[in-house]
């Protein structure tokens, strides 16, 4: 087995250029998914009619189908949908000029919403009802009670799980090359295609993801220490 170390080194630094794209998609999806996921979790816990069965079906679908299938579905559905909307609004939007990263945002934001809705639901359930009632009884509005009492406590239960879902999200973004977005995987694959060094290219991708995810895990550990103060011992 002979590995081309020169190629390995060159491609490593080239593929590092894809890290911002990966992080962009991850952060963008999280920014959308955290509020909507939280809203879904609260709606599910409070058993709001119409919304609850709707959200449940959505969550079950997103959790029950493979990521790659969701990508293909949205990647094939969104352009014609966007086109129809832009025609309806009289916009002159050229569908072929839309940056594919937009579709990536859509796919990962939608699936992460479903994942986080479940995470938040179980995290909120770890907070006793008495906490909320006590807050209301001393004159907090339910909004205040959620923001100051319930959410900080739920956060300490949610963060470790969120660390897992975020790393899963980062790993799943390696599939965006199917949508012709140039991320870590896509860059390394293109390089490998030119020089036929497949093993080296995948070793590079492997190393970059390893470093990236270990860093993210350390950040989450730091955040967990910060929110632990809300947890009574």
């Amino acid at each position: 087995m002979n590995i081309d170390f020169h190629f390995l080194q060159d491609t490593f630094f080239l593929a590092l250029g894809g890290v911002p794209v990966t992080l962009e998609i991850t952060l963008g999806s999280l920014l959308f998914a955290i509020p909507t996921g939280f809203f879904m979790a609260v709606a599910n816990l409070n058993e709001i009619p119409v919304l609850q069965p709707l959200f449940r079906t959505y969550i079950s679908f997103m959790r029950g189908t493979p990521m790659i299938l969701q990508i293909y579905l949205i990647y094939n559905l969104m352009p014609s949908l966007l086109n129809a909307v832009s025609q309806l609004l009289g916009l002159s939007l050229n569908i072929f000029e839309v940056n594919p990263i937009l579709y990536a945002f859509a796919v990962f934001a939608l699936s992460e919403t479903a994942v986080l809705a479940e995470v938040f639901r179980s995290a909120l359930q770890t907070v006793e009802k008495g906490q909320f009632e006590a807050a209301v009884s001393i004159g907090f509005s339910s909004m205040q009670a959620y923001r100051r009492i319930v959410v900080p406590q739920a956060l300490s239960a949610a963060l470790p799980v969120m660390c897992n879902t975020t790393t899963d999200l980062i790993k799943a973004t390696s599939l965006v090359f199917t949508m012709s977005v140039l991320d870590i995987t896509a860059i390394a694959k293109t390089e490998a295609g030119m020089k036929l060094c497949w093993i080296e290219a995948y070793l590079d991708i492997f190393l970059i993801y390893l470093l990236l995810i270990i860093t993210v895990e350390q950040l989450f550990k730091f955040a967990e220490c910060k929110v632990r103060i809300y947890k009574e011992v």
Partner: protein
Amino acid sequence: METIHFVKIFTYIPELLPFLFVTMEYVILSMFFGSVLGFILALAKLGRNKIWKSLANVYTTILRCTPSIVLLFLLFYSIPVFIKSIFDLDIGSSETMVVVVITFSLFLGASLSEIMRSSYEAIEQGQYEAAMSIGFTTIQALRRIVLPQAFYVALPNIGNTILYLMKEGALAFTIGLVDLMGKGYQINSETLGGYVLEVYIALAIIYWTISIGVERIFKKLEISYGLGSQCVKVSSKINENEKMEGTV
């Protein structure tokens, strides 16, 4: 907007369904080999030898940080090279099914070892000690007292692992395996992408149905399996609540 041919969706479902067996084949095989690997790793993690312990932990961390598609391709390209350099045997290209099973066995080894370790640790030491005190041997105590309870704790996680495997396995088509997803991909190239959406919707329906089915089965298993083991805990909790209410 182009219209979706709903009739086509239902003609594609029976065409795709036979390939469910291919999907099931790698799910079952990977679960089997993954459990064996996971068991060995869990033993290393629970054991006293520090070197084995840290090796097992490093293995788990690395596998947890790897996207499945990367390992899939890495093995797909490196197995033939590997075999050639060791056995001097030219196998041309890899057998895709073997690559898929090896890949997911490696992943499952990592996740199942964590599940086994945590569910073993969830059982109180007192259970084991009590079994020893009434004259069980170590193996008897493990087999009859500790492991059945640990299995109950692990059940929901095992269900999740199977679902994870089924969903991640959909990536196997990228190296050319014709499973459910692979067949869908094949149909798309045969029809020159004429009914892409219909095929994917049909696939989504199949995967979704199976996921819901597996979830239901595991919930039922949990209820039926938990009858004996949880009884004590639940009743003691009720007693505690009653006591608390009494004092209030």
